[in-house]
């Protein structure tokens, strides 16, 4: 059973609509900025990040918004965009639809405020009634469901940087069962110094470009020194193709298939072999051969080890002729949202038949020379794209995206 994408929504460091975001990609812009205020945090040495473009949270009614942190606000606004584009009739179909949305954790901003006050007061005195709804692990999914008045099943997968890709693949799997007609899938995360700290303490966040933030995220480049955390939300409406066609929904793309595997070997050290296995399984599941892949959207975050392992795995499966690029130099790393955002960007590349190259790729690291890394925009007919995301915990995910 084919699974169609009928709506997309995005809030990101490069814009809050698909068209704005993609125009900024074509212009080779980056959302990464200097965050000198972060110098006040002892033990943190990375002072760069990519905040989302400003959005109007007031479009969400107060009684719904009061339980939302920024990650839920961004997810809700992106969901409104996606639903509007797809024209999905939510109120009539809830028992045949699912919401699958995740984040890396509950709101770090609210967690900081909550525990700061808890320690200051020596107990829960003075806590707002809505704090928990912002820090619970399924905050994004529950808040979006509330905003939509959705009364069907809601799931909240969480696997850090693989979250939204897993959500989309899970949506594809569940539509395949025939139990569901549609899935609203994706992820969101908000920028906070604790998110950067997680990477900084394991020497995986960029530290050398605090004074030149636009150059900080440089996947596959010889002088890369770590990732830059971003934020945002990426949402897709998935439907069985039959359901979508019956209601004359726009078919923007098709999910060929996907797979997610855990490497089970190391919490933080990416394993090329496991990445390869995940890509291989994704291709097998949709009966696509490596030769049929026209472009690979890499996870590559700009870490020394991760990019090398990914280049090894990707080169082993698709060789050196297929263009590969990472968009982390443009967006930064939006954690739970990055997969969905990159899939949406890949859909737009398919629609326009062009490949956006990796930003800041001045000198390709020889350890990453196992793949073809274009340095300029490439005009190419794109029919099938392999989208990869890999996360701490050995959480690997690969998805095949097809033209409609």
């Amino acid at each position, binding site marked *: 059973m084919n699974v169609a994408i009928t709506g997309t929504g995005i809030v990101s460091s490069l814009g809050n609509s698909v068209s704005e975001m993609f125009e900024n990609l074509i212009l080779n812009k980056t959302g990464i900025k200097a965050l000198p205020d972060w110098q006040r945090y002892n033990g943190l040495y990375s002072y760069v990040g990519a905040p989302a473009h400003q959005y109007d949270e007031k479009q969400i009614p*107060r*009684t719904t918004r*009061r339980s939302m942190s920024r990650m839920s606000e961004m997810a809700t606004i992106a969901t409104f965009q996606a639903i509007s584009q797809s024209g999905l009739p939510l109120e009539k179909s809830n028992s045949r639809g699912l919401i699958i949305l995740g984040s890396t954790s509950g709101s770090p901003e609210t967690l900081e405020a909550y525990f700061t006050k808890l320690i200051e007061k020596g107990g829960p005195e*003075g*806590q*707002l*009634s*809505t704090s928990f709804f912002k820090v619970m692990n399924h905050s994004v999914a529950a808040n979006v469901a509330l905003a939509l008045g959705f009364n069907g099943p809601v799931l909240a997968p969480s696997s850090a940087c693989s979250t939204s890709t897993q959500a989309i693949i899970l949506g594809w799997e569940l539509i395949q069962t025939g139990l569901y007609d549609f899935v609203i899938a994706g992820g969101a995360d908000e920028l906070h110094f604790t998110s950067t700290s997680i990477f900084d303490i394991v020497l995986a966040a960029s530290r050398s470009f605090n004074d030149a933030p636009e150059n900080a995220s440089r996947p596959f480049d010889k002088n890369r020194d770590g990732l830059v955390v971003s934020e945002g939300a990426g949402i897709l409406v998935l439907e069985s193709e039959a359901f979508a066609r019956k209601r004359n929904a726009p078919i923007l793309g098709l999910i060929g298939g996907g797979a997610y595997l855990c490497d089970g070997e190391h919490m933080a050290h990416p394993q090329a072999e496991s990445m390869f296995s995940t890509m291989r399984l994704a291709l097998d599941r949709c009966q696509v051969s490596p030769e049929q892949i026209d472009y690979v959207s890499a996870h590559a975050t700009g870490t020394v080890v991760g990019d090398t392992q990914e280049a090894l795995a990707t080169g082993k499966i698709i060789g050196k002729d297929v263009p590969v690029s990472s968009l982390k130099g443009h967006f930064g790393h939006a954690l739970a949202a990055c997969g969905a955002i990159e899939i949406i960007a890949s859909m737009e590349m398919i629609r326009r038949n062009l490949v956006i190259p990796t930003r800041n790729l001045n000198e390709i690291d020889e350890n990453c020379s196992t793949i073809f890394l274009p340095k300029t925009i490439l005009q190419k007919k794109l029919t099938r794209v392999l989208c990869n995301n890999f996360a701490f915990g050995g959480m690997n995910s690969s998805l095949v995206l097809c033209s409609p």
Partner: protein
Amino acid sequence: MNQTDIITRVNTVLTEGFEIPPEKLQPESTLFQDLELDSLDAIDLIVYLEEKLELKVDTEQFKDIKTLNDVYQLVQRLQTKTV
């Protein structure tokens, strides 16, 4: 705080904390119907009153509050107690 200060500061809490338009804030306005607050908002209103007006509010005292004027009077009583 005199009565005018109390009204100003309570109303500020309601406009800033709950986005209620100032013109809706009449003494006879009921919290749950006219101002459209609910039980979660009531808990947060107590937190804000304690924080912004430096009071200690017992949730039991808040159970009988129905109108905005009831809130003003409660703040007046609590302020007197504190003094």
